[in-house]
């Protein structure tokens, strides 16, 4: 139901008003930029997922939305140690993305991270430093690694389209 609301009502409205679209995008980009280029906090994953979600449903950019075509993927991001209260999930299906705060049981990939910086370093290129994340034991990944690779591309692609590089 939420997907129908977003796809067939919210998105066309957002697309009707270029100004609204650009405004929301700018807000999200600003918040994302702070996390990506600055000190990533434990809010990193929430900001990233919600930013991606917003971009997916507001953007008229078909190329970016094409990333969702026929894609069925379920991601669970879980904080550990001091970040243990952080739980966010993202599901991709039917050409749409949904973000949930909380766990999902049927994830394709579960990422457990000690802090936002480690998670950012794990996901991102060119600053991507999986090796450091592993050497510091800061990120663990269970499940299908290919899903994380795809996710990493979508994040990179999003950053490029938002002008965050």
């Amino acid at each position, binding site marked *: 139901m939420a997907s129908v609301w977003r796809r067939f009502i919210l998105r066309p409205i957002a697309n009707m008003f270029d100004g609204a679209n650009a405004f929301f995008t700018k807000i999200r980009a600003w918040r994302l930029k702070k996390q990506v280029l600055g000190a990533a906090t434990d809010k990193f994953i929430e900001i990233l997922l919600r930013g991606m979600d917003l971009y997916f449903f507001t953007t008229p950019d078909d190329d970016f939305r094409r990333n969702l075509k026929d894609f069925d993927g379920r991601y669970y991001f879980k904080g550990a140690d001091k970040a243990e209260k952080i739980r966010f999930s993202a599901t991709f299906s039917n050409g749409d993305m949904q973000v949930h705060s909380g766990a*999902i049981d049927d994830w394709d990939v579960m990422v457990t991270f000690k802090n936002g910086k480690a998670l950012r370093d794990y996901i991102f290129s060119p600053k*991507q430093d*999986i*090796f450091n994340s*592993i050497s510091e034991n800061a990120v663990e*990944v269970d499940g299908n690694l290919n899903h994380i690779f*795809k996710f990493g591309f979508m994040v*990179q692609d999003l950053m490029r389209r938002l002008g965050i590089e």
Partner: protein
Amino acid sequence: MPEIKLPDISLKDIRLTERVSELRKDYFKAMPEMCVERPRWVTRFAIENGLFKQDRISILDKARTYRYVLENRSPIALHNQACEKDAHTGKLKTFKLENKHLSLFAGSTTSKYKGVPLYPEFLAPAFWPELETISKRDRNPYGITDKEIDELNYDIFPHWIDDNILELTRKRMLRNNGEKHDVRGKKDPPDITLLKRLVFFLTSKPYTISHTIPDFSRAIKKGLREIINEANEKKNKTNDDDKKEFYTAIAEALEGIIAYSNRLANEAERLAKNERNSSLKQELLDIARINRRVPEYPARTFREGLTTVWICWIAIHLENPNIGLSLGRLDQVLYELYRQDIDKKTISIEDAVELVCCLWLKIGDHVPAIPDAAEKLFGGTGSNQAITIGGVDKEGKDAVNDLTYVILRATELMLLRDPNLNARYHLGINSDEYIRRLCEANIETKATPALHNDKAVIKALTSKGETIEQARDYGIVGCVEPCSNGRAYGHSASILLNLTSVLELTLFNGRHRHTGMNLLISEETGDPVNFKDFDEFKDAFAKQVRWMAEKTTSLNNIFGRTHQQFYPTPILSALFEGPMEKGKDLIQGGAIINSSGVTIIGFADVVDSLIAIEEVVFKEKRYTFPEFIEAMKSNFKGNDYNKLQIRLMDPKKTPKYGNEDPTADANATWLVDLLDKEFSEKRNYRGGHYRLGYWTMTIHAGYGRLTGALPSGRKAKENFTSGITPVSGVTPSLPQALNSVACLPSQSISSGMALNLKFTPEADKKKMLDNFVAYVKGYFDDNQGQRDGGMEIQFNITSHDDLVDAVKHPEKYPGLLVRVSGYTAYFKDLNPQMQKEIIDRTEYQLQSGKAIPYDPFPLSQTDS
């Protein structure tokens, strides 16, 4: 025994021809570019034929896939453009190739001038997050266009999300007995988790098997048409459905190769038609004529023989990832054709050198795909395509011939990292002139060829059940692994074991500092603080080795089963001794010799740690075990621990491996024998056994970063030592270092070793060469059976100052070749950690035999 007819075995009057010089210039200018051609065609075929829905990919599915690719991929007789780095902006851009001179061979491993082939069935999806940044990364960037990015992102990688070898294996492990239930929400099997932690071991099956030598002689002597006819005959004679399918697949795959060669011929003719320059026109027509002949029919000339090797090589790389596939004893396989042409005067020696040089450039027309995350472990590596020369033949006679020296000279002139030249030497059978020439080539090139001791290697191989004839016919695979040519499927890199992790598990009672003291990783073998003597420590260590052997081999075998189910190899099987006779693919055990290789990282660091524990804790009792552990945990910080560390690193105070010390040598031998015993008892999924090797690529630098301080006195995050080499800086005497390694039992090192030595270049080259030869011969000598003699040795002959300068000014040393730990690499392509490791290696003066002390090379904070 062939007679040496060359007037001068050094061939020093032969230089690079204008053709090769120009081709070489373009080669060095060109940067690698990702190639989507293979993944495109493979994916398309899989979609159109429903392969993604199948529970199994048969050998016939694979053969049809490859035939489809070979019949559809671009037949490139001539590249028009390549990719270079802009000197001002540092960005990658295209440049036009002038093609004033043509290569003497057509065809290309990928669609690019210098390509990065992608294998989505393996780990190509690991590049997904980097697609938009890979052309801009600091080290070893790859060119890629926006269109190619889109194709990989939208049309190729999505299809393989659930279907590459790693994911198929993970699902296999979560589903028992072939069930099909959903694995979503299930944590990884413990062994996969262990693998993903990286610090314990790597297994290469998620990204390759390769690591073998095909039997080119059957393609050269028979031609592929005859092999197809044989396959059809055998198919008609058998009632076994699996064998019928096998032989059908062989025929299918080889028809694809023939089709590709003919398409190259068509393309060469098309270019010739439009070519105004008469000599270029004729060259293109020659290429067309040759490609119509071979590899379909037997080669009649040296050039046709080389073309057969080349076209088959392209096809083999279509099927098998470009890591460690090796070409074997080309000086043996092609000698008759070379000899015939030289004797008939249809080619000159200069022509032969030029042909080999052109082939070398073709062989090096690709690099392995290394994602940014793996740069720390594998950065700067080429495809490690080893070629082997010299040694003895199957009858034990001198096999060195004129072509041996032609190949050596070509390698000396070209200074390429790929192919990786390895030379066999049999003391007492091969001539002194030959070994002298090999040492001379090392001085000239600064890094190649690696030298292998036939006596010790043959002994090692026969101890593992090979016949003497099989063992004598060994070639080198990848880095340094001996492998019987065209009949041994040995996957020498199946397991890459960080031996220091076994030490950690012993020191911390089944736990590892990296994963935390609260997490039991292996078995509890006791807290060492309670051990009464060193034997108790060794028992605990042996138990951890046993545990690790069980874990790693069973995981490798599970991956192997996935390969059997989803990745048969019809092309390689067609060009191998065994599969045609058995009617069985290599992956099912079709080879004559089946084994799997384990290579050990951190050997010297662990040996020195064992020695330190024995001496300092148990013999001298100068420190208790708790104090020792505390010292390590604190990274030897604090006054007392600092003193301990200095004492541990001083070979005058603490015995070190590599100084002919009895305690040290005993520990080294014990360790080598223990590892061989525990692993060689295990069976692999093809019915063979595991073999041990000691070569480390650049992984010893990467693993060093993950590991804390060790009992040897090594501090946290410092590089491990490469191969089987003693730790840098603690072996002041060259003869003693050589003798310590030469005393190791070769039957326990049947998958090769890399002893990496650095010599100071000397002004008096003749004197240097005399000493060089003497040391090598002394090292290889078995002292009338009192020891086995050293198995392998390789060199860096660049001064310390030049290496340091090369770090600061890489643009001054674009082609500086170094020996890493097995293969050669360009120094500028190595990551900073690896460059430091090479700079810090013990450097010896050959004249005095003594090490020159240097301060450790400082690594900048951003690089450490």
